[in-house]
C-alpha cells in the first residue's frame, strides 16, 4: 500500500489546501530558523569570557525594537489569517445540483445510501467532476467522516444533519475513516471512497441490486406511518400541505420564518412542537422513537421529491 490512498490531492480544493499548508510550512520554517540561529549565534558570540562587545543598549532602542517586532508579528499573523480564511470562504458555497448521498454512522460502521437507492456499507461510490454532497447523521455517539484525499473532515452528530461537499477530480480508490474517537473499534471504522468516471458510475449504479429509490420507499412510509392521513390535501384534519415544502420559507406561529431544509423537516417529524407553522394548531404527535434514522432519510427524500427533485438545495444559512 502506498500513501496514494491518503495523500493524493483528489480535488481542486485539496490542491488549494496543500498550497496553503506549504506556504505556512515555509513561513514557520523561516521563523524557526531565525529564532534558532539567533539563539545559537548569541550563545556562541556571548558565551562567558568571549571578547564580544557588551554593555547597555540605549533604553530608547530597546523600546523601538520591542514595538517593532510586536507590530510585525501582528501584521504577519493577521495576513496569514486573512489569507487562510479567504481560501476557506469560497469553499463554503454549497454547490448547486449536487449529487446527494446519505450517510448514517453507527458504532462501528458507515451505512451509505445513494440517491438511486443503492446501499453501501463502508464504501462511497461517487462520479468524478460532479459536486457531491454527503448528508450525514449518527445513530449513537459522535463520529467523524474523514476523507484525507479531499482534505476534508466533518463530525457526524446524533440528532442532527451535518454536511460535507466536494468535487472529486481524480478517479481512484481512496481512504475513508472515522476521526472522532467513538469507542472500542474506532480504529477500524474505515472504508473506501471510490471515485469513478461518470459512465463507470452510471454502470455501477445500474448493476446494483434492484432497490426502490429513497423517495419511493419514503412514500410508502408516509402512508404506513399515517402521515398522509392528515397531510393529504383532501384530509379533513387541518395540517400543512407538504407539496413544494422543501427549500421554501415557512412562517412560524411565533413570527419567525425558517427555511424548510433537512434539519427543519427532521425536527418537524421528531419534535413537532418546536417549530409550528403559522396558522396551524400544534396537534401533530412526535415520531421520536417510532422512526429509525434510515426511515427518516427516506421520508425526507420523499418530501424533497414533492418539490421537484432531490438535488436542488437552498444556500445554507450561517
Amino acid at each position: 500500500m502506498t500513501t496514494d490512498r491518503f495523500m493524493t490531492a483528489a480535488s481542486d480544493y485539496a490542491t488549494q489546501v496543500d498550497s496553503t499548508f506549504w506556504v505556512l510550512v515555509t513561513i514557520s520554517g523561516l521563523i524557526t530558523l531565525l529564532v534558532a540561529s539567533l539563539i545559537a549565534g548569541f550563545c556562541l558570540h556571548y558565551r562567558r569570557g568571549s571578547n564580544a562587545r557588551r554593555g547597555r543598549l540605549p533604553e530608547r532602542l530597546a523600546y523601538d525594537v520591542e514595538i517593532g517586532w510586536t507590530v510585525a508579528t501582528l501584521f504577519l499573523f493577521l495576513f496569514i489569517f486573512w489569507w487562510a480564511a479567504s481560501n476557506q470562504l469560497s469553499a463554503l458555497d454549497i454547490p448547486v445540483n449536487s449529487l446527494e448521498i446519505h450517510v448514517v454512522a453507527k458504532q462501528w460502521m458507515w451505512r451509505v445510501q445513494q440517491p438511486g437507492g443503492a446501499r453501501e456499507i463502508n464504501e462511497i461510490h461517487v462520479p468524478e467532476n460532479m459536486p457531491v454532497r454527503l448528508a450525514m447523521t449518527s445513530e449513537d455517539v459522535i463520529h467523524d467522516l474523514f476523507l484525507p484525499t479531499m482534505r476534508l473532515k466533518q463530525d457526524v452528530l446524533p440528532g442532527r444533519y451535518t454536511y460535507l461537499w466536494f468535487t472529486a477530480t481524480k478517479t481512484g480508490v481512496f481512504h475513508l475513516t472515522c476521526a472522532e474517537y467513538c469507542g472500542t473499534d474506532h480504529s477500524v471504522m474505515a472504508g473506501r471512497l471510490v471515485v469513478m468516471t461518470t459512465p463507470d458510475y452510471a454502470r455501477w449504479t445500474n448493476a446494483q441490486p434492484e432497490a426502490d429509490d429513497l423517495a419511493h420507499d419514503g412514500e410508502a412510509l408516509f402512508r404506513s406511518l399515517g402521515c398522509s392521513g392528515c397531510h393529504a390535501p383532501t384530509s379533513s384534519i387541518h395540517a400543512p400541505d407538504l407539496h413544494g415544502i422543501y427549500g421554501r420559507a415557512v412562517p412560524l406561529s411565533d413570527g419567525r420564518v425558517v427555511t424548510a431544509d433537512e434539519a427543519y423537516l427532521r425536527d418537524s417529524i421528531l419534535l413537532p412542537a418546536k417549530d409550528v407553522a403559522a396558522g396551524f394548531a400544534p396537534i401533530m404527535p412526535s415520531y421520536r422513537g417510532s422512526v429509525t434514522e434510515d426511515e427518516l432519510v427516506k421520508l425526507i427524500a420523499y418530501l424533497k421529491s414533492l418539490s421537484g427533485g432531490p438535488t436542488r438545495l437552498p444556500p445554507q444559512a450561517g
Partner: protein
Amino acid sequence: MTDTAIADATVEAQPASYLAAGHTLLSWLTTTDHKRIAILYAISITFFFFIGGIAIALVRLELMTPQGLILTSDAYNRLFSLHGIIMVWFFLVPSIPATMGNFLLPLMIGAHDVAFPRLNLLSWYLYVFGAAFTVYALISGGVDTGWTFYTPLSTNYATGYVIAAAAGVFVVGFSSIATGINFIATAHMLRAPGMTWFRLPLFVWAMYTVSMVMVLATPVLAMSLLLVIAERAFGLPIFDAARGGDPVLFQHLFWFYSHPAVYIMILPAMGVVSEVIPCFARRTIFGYAFMVYALIAIAVIGFMVWGHHMFVAGQSPLANLVFSFLSFIVAVPSAIKVFNWTATLHRGQITFEAPMLYALGFVGLFTIGGLTGLFLASVPIDIHATDTYFVIAHFHFVMVGGTVSAYMAGLHFWWPKVTGRMYSEAWARFAAITTFLGFNATFMPQFVMGWNGMPRRYHYYPDVFQAWHVMSSVGALILAVAYVLPLIYFGWSMIYGRRAGANPWNATGLEWQTSSPPAKENFDHIPRIDAGPYAYDESDHPPAAGDRTLVRSQGETA
C-alpha cells in the same frame, strides 16, 4: 534588592531549616509550611507522572506494529485515556504552580508564608482525594472516554468507570481553585515593603496570572463534569440528542475550561524560563514590562479561543472565522515572549548549566509548538489536521517540550535552594540534551504522519504509517531514559550531594538571599526592596564561581 540587609539576616544567625522542623510523617501531613506542602505536591505529581508515563509507554509499544502486539482495543483505549487524564489534571495543571509556585512565591515576594496556609494544606488533601477516585477508576478497570469525556460517548455508551474518573477530576479542580485563590491573595497582601507590582519577578507575575485563569476557568470544568455525572448516573438528559439534549453543548463547556487550561500549563513555564535565562545569561530580562503585558494578554485572550477546537464539530462557519481570528491574535504575545528571551541573550555572559540547557530547549520547542498552533488556527488546515497526529504533536510540543522542559529547568535551578545540595552537573546536562533529542525523535514523526492522514486514538492503523510510528516509539524510549535519569541523580544528591550554599548560581532573586534550605520562617526579618528584579550587572553579579561559595554583592545597581 537590599542584599546587604538580607545577607546580614541569613548568614550570621542560621536558624534551623524548614526540613529540620519535624521529621515524623505526621509533621509532614499536618504542616502548613508552604515549602513542605510544595514537597508533598512534588512527591504526588512525580508518582502520577510515572503512572501516566507507563500508560503511554505501553501505548507506544503497542503501536510498533499496525496490528498491535499485546493489547485489546479496549485496553488500548483505556491506556491512552488514562495517560491523558493523569498527565493533564494530576501532573501538568498542578506541576509548576503547586510545587515551585508554592515553594517560591512567598520567598520571591519576601513573605513568611502564603496568605492562607491552612487552605494551602487543604488544597493538597483535595488533590489526594481526587487522585483516590482516579486510582479507584484505574484499578477497577479504567475509563475509555479519552481525556476529553465527549458526550454522548461518556454519558451513554462508554463501559469504563466514567463516574469515578470524572469525580476525581471534579475534586482535583477544587484543589486548583484553592491554590489560585491563595496565590492571588498572597500576591496582593504579602509583598515586602518596596516590592511594587513592577518589581515582581516574572515568575510571580506568571503565578498571579495563572491563578486568575484557574479561579475563573476551573468552575466551568466542574460544572460540565457534574452534568456528565448527572446524565450517566441519574439519566438527566442534558447531552442526549435522542431525548432533546445537545451533545455539542458539552464540547463548548469543556473547551471553555480546557483551552484556558492550556495556558494554565504554559504560563508558569514561561515564568520559570524568565527566571533561568537572565541568570545564566547574566543579563537583565529584555522588555520586562512587555513580558508582563504579554502574560496578561495571554491569560485574557486565552478565554476567547475555545471554539477553535470545534471547527469540524458542526459549528457555524461564521463562528469558525471569529475563533480563528482570535486564535491568531493570542499567538502574538507568545511570539513576543520568544523574541524577548532571545534578546535577553544578546550581550550576555552566557554559561550552559543544566537549567539553562532545559530553558533553551524550552524556547526552541515552544517556538515550534506555537507556530504549528497557527496551522491549526487556520480553518482549512485544521479541518484536515484536527483529530490526527498533527494535533498530538502540536500540543505535546507545547505541553511536554514546553511545560515539562520548563519544569525540569526549574527543578534543576531551584533544587539547591530546596534541598541545600548540588546534583551531578554532568549527568544533568546529559539528561537535558537527551530530553531535547528524545523529544524531537518522538514528536517530529507525528507531524508528518498526522498531515498524511493518520488519525489519533487509533489502535490499529494502515501499514503505510508503520515507519513513522516505530521512529516515534524509539524516540519515546530515549525520552523515558531522559526522565528517569533525574530521579537517580537527584536521589543521589539528597544524600551525597555537595552543600550548595545560599546562592550557588549567584542569582539576584530574593529567594537566593536566604539560606539553602531556607528557614521555616523564610526570612529573619522581612527585607526592604528598592529596585526591580534581574539586576545582573556584570560587575556585581559575575557568573557563579567554581567553588560556589556565597558571593555577597555590595551596593545596588538597577
